[in-house]
């Protein structure tokens, strides 16, 4: 890691943007760009490695850990430039999601071991939360971890584990104590997927891609040093991480991507001046641009206060909903072409398929509506 980087928050915006663009142009091959789905990690690894070399892989991390230390508005610009040039969706749950949690909760040993390896793309992480009977009601998870000397013996199952079939590691919630309330007795564990007793079954998603998996644990032995935070206190770690995840889950970047695709369509069809489509496009643009205003505000709050308030559910609900609306509008404007399965940049169905998951994952939008009603609006519990 080089230490000679400029202060990315201080250099002029134009220069900052130019730096990112230069990096993409030189390091991200054209065949990786503007692809609607996620490539397998080996395909995108050269690009990942390049970001790693330049210390661009973890823009939100502090500089001392190889991050760029970007403030939220710069972070947004970073994402904006990446999206505008169609850089591929990476397997970066580690740097994006787990990294900040390790920085906050990890022991020095954990930091020293995990952070550089996820930074380098040597470890690919997946998140193991959901179980067949613990979806919206996550706290009722059952996947069993028996404390046994230095180790934890894991038995049970996870499901909807994104990218488990290509991950080297999983950060997961494991029930290590059944004596207390259901939020208690859960540990946040860092699990090597190559351990004996782990079986992964990919599940095809609507787009026909193996995006998420079932993961089965059969007497998997994990050392207790792989618990992040304290044993049985995993819920706390997971909740703190939810903050970051919810900012990410509420980002309008995916809606913005469809908006650009929509605009290209209208331009190609000569409909930008058609009063009907101009009105619909303006409305769609407002929906996405307004989401950006909201996103920036929440991101600013996170930076200022260091925490995300419950109001952020509103951002997640809005951004994921408009992603769906825009994907449906794209089908409408393309008429009979919308019925065809194609691939690459012209894939009109991909946004439709891709936009179905975000309203369900990271807490269904219905769960977030409950949260708002209870915690923000102060309405009485519904039972």
């Amino acid at each position, binding site marked *: 890691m080089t230490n000679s980087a400029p202060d990315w928050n201080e250099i002029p915006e134009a220069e900052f943007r130019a730096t990112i663009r230069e990096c993409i142009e030189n390091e991200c091959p054209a065949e990786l760009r503007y692809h609607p789905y996620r490539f397998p990690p080996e395909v995108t690894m050269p690009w990942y490695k390049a970001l790693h070399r330049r210390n661009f892989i973890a823009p939100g991390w502090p500089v001392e850990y190889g991050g760029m230390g970007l403030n939220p508005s710069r972070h947004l610009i970073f994402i904006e430039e990446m999206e505008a040039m169609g850089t591929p969706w990476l397997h970066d749950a580690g740097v994006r999601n787990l990294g900040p949690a390790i920085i906050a909760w990890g022991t020095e040993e954990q930091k020293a071991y995990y952070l550089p390896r996820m930074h380098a793309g040597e470890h690919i992480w997946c998140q193991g939360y*959901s179980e067949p*009977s613990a*979806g*919206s*009601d996550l706290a*009722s998870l059952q996947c069993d971890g028996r404390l046994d000397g230095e180790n934890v013996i894991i038995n049970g199952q996870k*499901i*909807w584990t994104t990218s488990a079939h290509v991950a080297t590691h999983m950060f997961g919630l494991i029930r290590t104590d059944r004596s207390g309330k259901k939020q208690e007795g859960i540990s946040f564990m860092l699990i090597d997927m190559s351990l004996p007793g782990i079986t992964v079954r990919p*599940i*095809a*998603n*609507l787009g*026909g891609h193996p995006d*998420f998996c079932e993961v089965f644990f059969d007497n998997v032995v994990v050392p207790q040093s792989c618990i992040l935070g304290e044993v049985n206190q995993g819920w706390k770690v997971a909740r703190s991480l939810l903050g970051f995840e919810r900012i990410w889950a509420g980002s309008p970047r995916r809606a913005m991507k469809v908006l650009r695709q929509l605009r290209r369509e209208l331009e190609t069809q000569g409909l930008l001046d058609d009063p*009907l489509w101009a009105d619909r496009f303006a409305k769609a643009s407002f929906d996405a641009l307004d989401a950006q205003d909201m996103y920036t505000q929440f991101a600013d709050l996170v930076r200022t206060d260091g925490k995300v308030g419950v109001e952020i559910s509103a951002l997640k609900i809005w951004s994921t909903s408009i992603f*769906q609306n825009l994907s*449906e509008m794209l*089908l*409408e*404007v*393309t*008429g*009979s*072409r*919308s*019925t*065809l*399965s194609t691939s690459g940049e012209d894939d009109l*169905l991909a946004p*439709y*398929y891709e936009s*179905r*998951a975000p*309203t*369900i*994952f990271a807490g*269904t*939008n*219905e769960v977030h*509506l*409950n949260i708002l009603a209870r915690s923000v609006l102060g309405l009485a519990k*519904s039972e």
Partner: protein
Amino acid sequence: MTIVDPQTAEMLRETVAKHCERHADGALIRASRGDVPGALAADVATMAELGWLAVSVPEDHGGLGLGVSATGIIAEGLSGCYSSDPLTGLFLGARALVHAQESDGLLAQVVEGSATPVLAWQENAHDFASPLPATEYRNGTVSGTKRWVASAAQASHFVVSAREDGRDVLVLVDASSDGVSLSFGTRADGTPISELALTSAPSTVIARGSDATRALRRTLDEGTILVAAELMGHIDRMMKLVLEHLNTRKQFGKVIGSFQALQHRASNMFVHQRLTRSVLTTTLGCADLITDPVEFGQRAARLRARLNDTTQLVMRESIQLFGAMGITDENELSLHIKRCLSLLGYLGNSTEQRRYWTALSAQSARTGDTN
């Protein structure tokens, strides 16, 4: 043309339901994606045997003399096979011959399944409201490219819309002729849809000028009604799956269907489903009796727009209420979702239907009457 009587309707409904019980095969559909001809609700021989190809052929050609009212019942029912193919494709071909008053014996063969004419009319993605083919007919041959030709793999003939000296014509092309070439794309549901390239293909004119324009328009309007009928079947089946899910899936210690917020979502879906059913029933109950092209076109457009809109709503809400299960390819819901995605933009999406309806309103305002 007459409207199907209640007894015949019930008989059709039962036959189709029985057929689907025996032949619905999600695994085969998944395995056949991208193949030609892909999974079918029934092959041509079976459809002929069951009498489904005879339904919309006039009695003097050996058919049952019914129309879209009866065929709509079959299309709706075949949603139980997750697709009605190749019913709509064959219907369009046969109806184009009927409306063009073609009479050299081909329709009699349609009834038997020995001739399978298919309509090739579309060239651009947004042709539905006002098709104006670039395909040219001259001196017995036709040249041009047609797209979104459904069931072309089954076609013995193509009924092709073209222009002759600036006027509409409908011509008949033998599928095995020189100058006829097919290529296949794949729809959202994995079934093929074709591009038909015609290079001086030998052809016979079956309708000219306003007769051709009228015949094509009526055929397309009937086709869009048929698609609407199939969509209704998918809506009902998606609703059924969702309600089963709501009544069995538990979270927070109770079935999720007991959560009032989800109940209202389901009820709202039902409001649209019930509305849509009313429009379909009303339309099928009168369509074949309507002779005025403006009235017919407006009814068809309004019906189809409603079906499309409700389908979109039910797809979106069904997936959401299913949760993560809803975004896998492994459940039954996904088969309906993908079929609907293959149909929504076929023969006119909602925006196109509204544009068509508006154009007809203007036309009717010019000639005096409104609505």
